[in-house]
């Protein structure tokens, strides 16, 4: 019973200590029967098939003409691994790989740089595929060959111990290593070390290295610099640009860690720098070691967005509490930066070494650190003291995933030992809030409640918890979800919040929606939302001018003008009243007026267009004026009404006519004689003179300002203000005599006057 409880407690302890990432022991009892240490792992992911991953570690060796060296391969994204003996020994004297790094080309061909153990310099080789195996090219170089491809060129920087001071050197080949050419690329002012390479999305090549400027204890004064080549390694901007101000104190020790109580240590002489390029933007990231005010060796990062010409202020990746080293950096497609490193804690009886992965989702402003695995070397059966995991390990990115390999504690092996441990970690932030678009609203009307959808998404890996959403404008309100707040959104999901737009004013309405969540990078996300609120709009002609209209006393005479009361807006319009007012309101009346109030839809008119204002004058007068006033609801939310008027102007006359004489269309100043005769017996009856005037001047009537009345000109009128004698109904002959060019000329015209007739548009033109 006690044993069971202990087991349960142990299981609980293990479970609580387990990292969030899934770790896969690449080696198995079957594939690693000799329980090798599998140190200094390197990893590469096929860009054309991200499920295919290759890893090399210090596992078995090779023999010339015999056994080939191993390469670990996974074809299922790292879930399972096979150990393929495919690396052909380069020369007779070599017993196995000494240093190695692999990399896929952009087209998916895997290349490996290998140092042949037991071989005198030159001792490095670029391996290319040959059938199912890989074979070496020409020998070159000395120490720590790296590997990358820039287009069809393979590049392998290495450190040249054969010159003084030691110099970072780059090898390039355009025939996959069959022939190679080298160039010294590091500063010659100090010895170089830690030569690492990265290639950007446009093929630009970057190499980081350090200049060693004096060892003191376990640290040395150094400057990390980056050199660039934009022609696939033909030329370089040697010695490059320092990635930090001044110098740093970086590791240079053969005893990194604490070997107390039978423990083991690593070495950290070139375990202090790495470089990677953002595959999307081309921004360059470097990481390096620096002992800072914390007194611990720490990991720092810096970024360049101009091809390495200038560098951002370095930021510390680690937390300043433990000695840290062995940094590798990778950048995911979404810009997330991943840094793998090791720290150790020697405060206990046994030194605890921990592999960690730090991720920054905000260009280095903050770092999210995760322990991948912790171990004490006493518990492990193998591991070369002084070289536990090698000088470097493997970290890369494929899309938005980090894939790494480190030499850590075996998992599920019969013998607990150092093994290559693979992991993949999302580059998506743990919690990442995203609003793809602000909510959209259909055009609304005052008083409406128009819904819109606010989609809040979680592009992170963990749950997004939305605490609240508030709106700066009360016209926009967020409908609390059925379960209320907080709302939890799983990764890769969106939650559709409903936002109600209730306009209280017309026009473009805006609000700021503040979304509070557990996203550490954006604890309050603000979203600007806009909506358009419309209203009914009264359409009313400003003026109505009537033709001269015969007064009521003569007959049932009247004139009508359509009174168009319409809705020119985008929302309904309520008309509450239409009325005639003004000085001569009694002369006017409305016809076709429906029962009010009435609601007009957009584009509609009161009375469907039949509404008219009728003028039926009671007096002969030049100007009879009134206003048709329309009252409507201008603010549906409050019911507030407004009024708008249309001016009416009309002329009261008796039966008659008005004559204007023009010369070439221009009113003549004076007409020699105007004679009017009535034809008795119809159009062909005899004529009897009704009126005759000589030297009739041009008369002009100017309207009263502010009225709808019109400008008027004539030479003679009958039944109107200037000559109120009416013409009895009948047919009339009008004879005009004018003096034009000193000669008298005549013209005649006929017109008819009926009971309510007044012809105000008789124009005689010469």
């Amino acid at each position, binding site marked *: 019973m006690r044993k069971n409880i202990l087991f349960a407690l142990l299981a609980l302890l293990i479970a609580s200590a387990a990292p969030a990432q899934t770790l896969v022991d690449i080696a198995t009892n079957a594939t690693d029967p*000799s329980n*090798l*240490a599998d*140190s*200094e792992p390197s990893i590469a992911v096929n860009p054309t098939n991200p499920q295919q991953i290759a890893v090399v570690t*210090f596992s*078995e*060796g*090779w*023999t010339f003409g*015999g*056994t080939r060296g191993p390469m670990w391969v996974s074809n299922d994204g790292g879930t399972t691994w096979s150990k393929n003996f495919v690396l052909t020994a380069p020369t*007779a*004297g070599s*017993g*196995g*790989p*000494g*240093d190695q790094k692999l990399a896929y080309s952009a087209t998916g061909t895997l290349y490996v740089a290998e*140092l042949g*153990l*037991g*071989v*005198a310099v030159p*001792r490095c080789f670029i391996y290319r595929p040959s059938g199912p195996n890989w074979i070496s090219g020409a020998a070159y170089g*000395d*120490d*720590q060959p790296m590997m990358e491809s820039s287009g069809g060129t393979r590049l392998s920087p290495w*450190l040249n*111990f054969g010159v003084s001071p030691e110099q970072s050197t780059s090898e390039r080949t355009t025939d996959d290593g069959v022939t190679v050419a080298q160039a010294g690329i590091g500063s010659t002012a100090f010895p170089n*070390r830690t030569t690492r390479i990265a290639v950007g999305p446009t093929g630009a090549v970057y190499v980081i290295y350090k200049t060693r400027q004096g060892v003191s204890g376990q640290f040395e004064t150094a400057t990390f610099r980056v050199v660039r080549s934009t022609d696939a390694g033909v030329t370089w901007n040697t010695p490059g640009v320092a990635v930090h101000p001044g110098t740093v104190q970086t590791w240079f020790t*053969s005893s990194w860690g604490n070997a107390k109580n039978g423990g083991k240590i690593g*070495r950290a*002489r*070139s375990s202090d720098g790495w470089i990677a390029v953002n595959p999307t933007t081309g921004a360059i990231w470097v990481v390096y070691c620096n002992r800072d005010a914390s007194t611990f060796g720490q990991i720092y990062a810096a970024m360049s967005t101009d091809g390495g010409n200038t560098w951002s202020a370095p930021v510390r990746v680690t937390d300043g509490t433990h000695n840290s080293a062995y940094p590798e950096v990778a950048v995911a497609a979404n810009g997330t930066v991943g840094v793998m490193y090791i720290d150790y804690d020697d405060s206990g009886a046994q030194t605890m070494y921990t592999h960690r992965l730090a991720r920054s989702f905000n260009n280095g402003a903050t770092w999210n650190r995760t322990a991948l695995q912790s171990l004490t070397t006493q518990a492990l059966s193998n591991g*070369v*003291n*002084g*070289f536990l995991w*090698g*000088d470097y390990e493997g970290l890369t990115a494929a899309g938005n995933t980090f894939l790494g390999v480190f030499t850590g504690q075996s998992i599920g092996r019969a013998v607990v030992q150092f093994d290559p441990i693979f992991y993949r970690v999302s580059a998506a932030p743990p919690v990442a809030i995203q609003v793809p678009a602000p909510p959209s609203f259909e055009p609304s009307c005052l008083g409406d409640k128009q819904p819109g959808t606010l989609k809040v998404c979680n592009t992170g890996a963990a749950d997004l918890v939305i605490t609240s959403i508030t709106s700066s404008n009360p016209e926009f309100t967020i409908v609390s979800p059925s379960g209320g707040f907080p709302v939890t959104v799983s990764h890769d999901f969106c939650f559709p919040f409903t936002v109600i737009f209730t306009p209280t004013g017309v026009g473009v309405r805006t609000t700021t929606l503040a979304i509070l969540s557990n996203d550490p990078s954006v604890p309050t996300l603000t979203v600007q939302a806009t909506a358009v609120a419309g209203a009914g709009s009264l359409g009313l002609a400003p003026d109505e001018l009537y033709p001269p209209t015969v007064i009521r006393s003569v007959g049932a005479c009247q004139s009508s003008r359509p009174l168009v009361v319409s809705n020119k807006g985008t929302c309904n319009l309520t008309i509450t009243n239409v009325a005639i007012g003004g000085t001569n309101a009694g002369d006017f009346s409305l016809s076709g007026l429906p029962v009010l109030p009435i609601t007009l839809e957009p584009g509609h008119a009161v009375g469907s267009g039949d509404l008219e204002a009728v003028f039926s004058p009671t007096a002969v007068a030049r100007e009879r004026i009134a206003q048709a006033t329309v009252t409507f609801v201008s603010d549906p939310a409050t019911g507030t009404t407004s009024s708008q008027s249309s001016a009416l102007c009309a002329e009261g006359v008796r039966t008659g006519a008005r004559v204007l004489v023009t010369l070439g269309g221009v009113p003549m100043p004076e007409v020699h004689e105007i004679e009017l005769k009535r034809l008795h017996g119809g159009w062909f009856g005899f004529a009897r003179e009704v009126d005759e005037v000589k030297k009739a001047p041009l008369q002009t009537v100017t309207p009263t300002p502010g009225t709808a009345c019109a400008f008027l000109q004539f030479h003679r009128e009958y039944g109107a203000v200037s000559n109120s004698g009416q013409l009895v109904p009948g047919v009339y002959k009008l004879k005009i005599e004018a003096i034009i060019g000193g000669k008298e000329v005549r013209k005649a015209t006929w017109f008819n006057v009926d009971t309510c007739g007044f012809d105000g548009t008789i124009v005689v033109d010469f």
Partner: protein
Amino acid sequence: MARSATALLGLIALLVLSWAAFDGQPPLGAVGAAAPSGDASKLIDMLRDPLLWGPEKSAVLDSVPAFAQAGETQIEILPHRVVGRHKYKKSGEAEQPASRALNAMKTLPRMRVQVATPQEGAQPHTLGSVSAVAFPDDRTFRVGTPDREARYIASNVRIDQVEQRFGKAEKVTTEVIDDGTDRRPIELKLYHFAKDAIIVVTADYNSDPRTVDRVLLNTKAVTQAIF
């Protein structure tokens, strides 16, 4: 008296064991020689047994006195080369002792105890040129031979077979060779026999890390035992 008797019995037992180890035949060339000590006997056994050695074994063993004259207390026998264990930082430093060794090769003493089989004895008895050579394991210079076609130690023999034949190693130590660059260090496991007179070594980089990678011989012990 009792102590003397015990010592005498022990000596007799040792002689019997040594005799038995040589298949009941007296050691070749041992006529008239003093009986070897237990360690020497073990050493002789291991030198004689073909398990450990390649066809060119005789060339190596014949040259041991020459290396000793060059100041080497231990020689390192790899599959295709032989080097002294003394490390020189510069080539020039190794040239003089190499020259001494080369001269000594011209007047090598005859073995007092024959350890080569007739077939092994038929192979060339010289290492050829001994000079100051660069030794890739640690980037030092050694007195020794460059890599050549010869095969000095047996192929694919495992330390398990060695211990099965000669008993468990008296001790096992580890040596990590770091050449000062950032090349992977080499981890050697040293299996000590005959009070360090012969050390059988495995290396971690081999396809089978329990394969014998090299053999170390104490030049003084070997010289005393077989010359």
